[in-house]
């Protein structure tokens, strides 16, 4: 199974719109949403939940007040200011490192496992779909992303493709989403912010040695910046696999829970179809290079 991850650096460039459109056009695939902070794909890809699990993704220190003598050693040791003046753990600040438990002379502190989110696997008409929702304010996005990808592996049945909707940014969630993937598609937009963010996210793909392609969404919003992005990609040897026009009707269709494909938007449907052809062509080229 070939894994393609859609990332962007900047948020709101159209990752989920593109992936949900491809989920209709591409056959023989599985789907995953690795934006566990703010997942959106399940809004457009509905199905029957096959599996729902709590995810225990972190630990938290607990102080037993009956053993605590308020000596203050734990508070001095904690580098995250997670112990209050009353010697209570502040859950939002505790990283679960256990340093306090190691230094407590009374052995009054222990670590407890905490739930950090929920994972879901659904059967949909477009293929098996894995996603998760991080608990509000929880840490460990990266670990939860890894769990979403593990769930896909546990349910695969010889599908040819796995399409992964990634998260914005370049940090732990993105790194966990792209590790071990066959390629990434960076969805960009022709704005100064979009361009700056694209360069950073392509840097992450390069850092981890993952082949990258670029798709420019809303390309006609600013042709000058689009040309700059194309120049940049040419210099870096990164294929630009498609350009989608700025079309307010895409947003209107989304407001009715429809992808541009379901909305009958022919121009955009043709462009997204051609993007997929380019992705498969580029993947074949990579295969050939590998074989040589």
């Amino acid at each position: 199974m070939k894994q393609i991850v859609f990332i962007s650096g900047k948020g709101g460039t159209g990752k989920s719109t593109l992936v949900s459109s491809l989920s209709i056009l591409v056959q023989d695939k599985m789907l995953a949403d690795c934006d566990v902070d703010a997942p959106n794909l399940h809004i457009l890809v509905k199905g029957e939940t096959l599996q729902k699990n709590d995810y225990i993704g972190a630990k938290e220190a607990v102080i037993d007040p009956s053993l605590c003598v308020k000596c203050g050693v734990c508070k001095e040791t904690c580098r995250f200011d997670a112990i209050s003046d009353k010697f209570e753990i502040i859950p939002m600040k505790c990283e679960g490192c256990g340093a306090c438990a190691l230094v407590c002379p009374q052995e009054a502190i222990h670590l407890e496992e905490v739930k950090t989110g929920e994972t879901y696997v659904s059967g949909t008409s477009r293929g098996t779909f894995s996603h998760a929702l991080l608990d509000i304010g929880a840490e460990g996005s990266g670990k939860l992303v890894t769990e979403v990808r593990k769930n896909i592996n546990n349910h695969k049945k010889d599908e040819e493709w796995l399409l992964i909707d990634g998260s914005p940014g370049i940090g732990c969630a993105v790194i966990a989403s792209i590790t071990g993937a066959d390629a990434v598609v960076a969805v960009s937009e022709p704005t100064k912010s979009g361009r700056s963010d694209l360069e950073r996210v392509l840097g992450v793909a390069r850092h981890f040695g993952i082949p990258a392609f670029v798709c420019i969404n809303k390309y006609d919003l600013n042709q000058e910046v689009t040309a700059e992005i194309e120049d940049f990609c040419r210099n870096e040897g990164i294929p630009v696999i498609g350009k989608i026009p700025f079309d307010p009707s895409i947003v209107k269709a989304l407001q009715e829970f429809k992808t541009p494909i379901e909305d009958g938007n022919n121009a955009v449907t043709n462009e997204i179809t051609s993007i997929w052809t380019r992705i498969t062509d580029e993947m074949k080229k990579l295969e050939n290079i590998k074989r040589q």
Partner: protein
Amino acid sequence: MKIAVLSGKGGTGKTTVSASLAATLPYCQYIDCDVEEPNGGIFLTPKIIENSPVKVLVPEADMSKCNACGYCAKACQFNAIAVVKGNVLVFPEICHHCGACVIACPNDAIREVERIIGVVEANADDTFLQGKLNVGEPISIPILRELKNRIKKDTTVIIDCSPGASCTVVQSIEGCDYCVLVTEPTPFGLHDLKIAVQLVRKMGLPFGVVLNKASDSSRLIHEFCESEEIELLMEIPFSQDIAKGYSRGILPVQINDLWKEKFEELYKKIERGAKK
């Protein structure tokens, strides 16, 4: 007063709103806490004169003292140390810099060394601050801590957050007096707004909503705010002109005084909201 601007969903207009507020107010401090993808500087064009590395402490084993007992690896909750065949392997990128391994080592064989994970950049009077995580680094929290240590007292501070609702956003909005939640009228925008609302409610922070890319065809966000009794602070219409200006790094307030008045009005509403 410290104002945080967040959104849940990316690309809804956090930077547009926070940078517009900063450009409208006569004096304030703007802090870009989206250290994975900072963009505020594109619009506010500050003169950066300081570029300070953000350092964290990671372990290093002194093999002349180490007997490969493995206590350090056992203590590390993040699997950042492994002891294999008498060798201590450290994975510095995933280290949380907590120092547990140092405490756990019975032979005093672990010392901590500095490692750079990003930078803090500032203009001459610290009225513009931004953090930048180095490419390939997963953990940004220490940069956010550094930024928040430099918050100015007795002035208005505007904090531009990263998307999402995880620990980085918690770190950014903690201690703020008011949160502005920026959203857009799509099912995605509403879904992620609900997540952001849960976060600020959990943290007990006063908040209101700015609806960006508003259109007559959707009442999605209006209905949600009404039913949840959330103040809708401002609407910015869906406009090709605003989008085109944004693409060139220009804010509506920088070309149109009418928008300046609207953002002054927004600031007044925030002030009132923070006092409630």
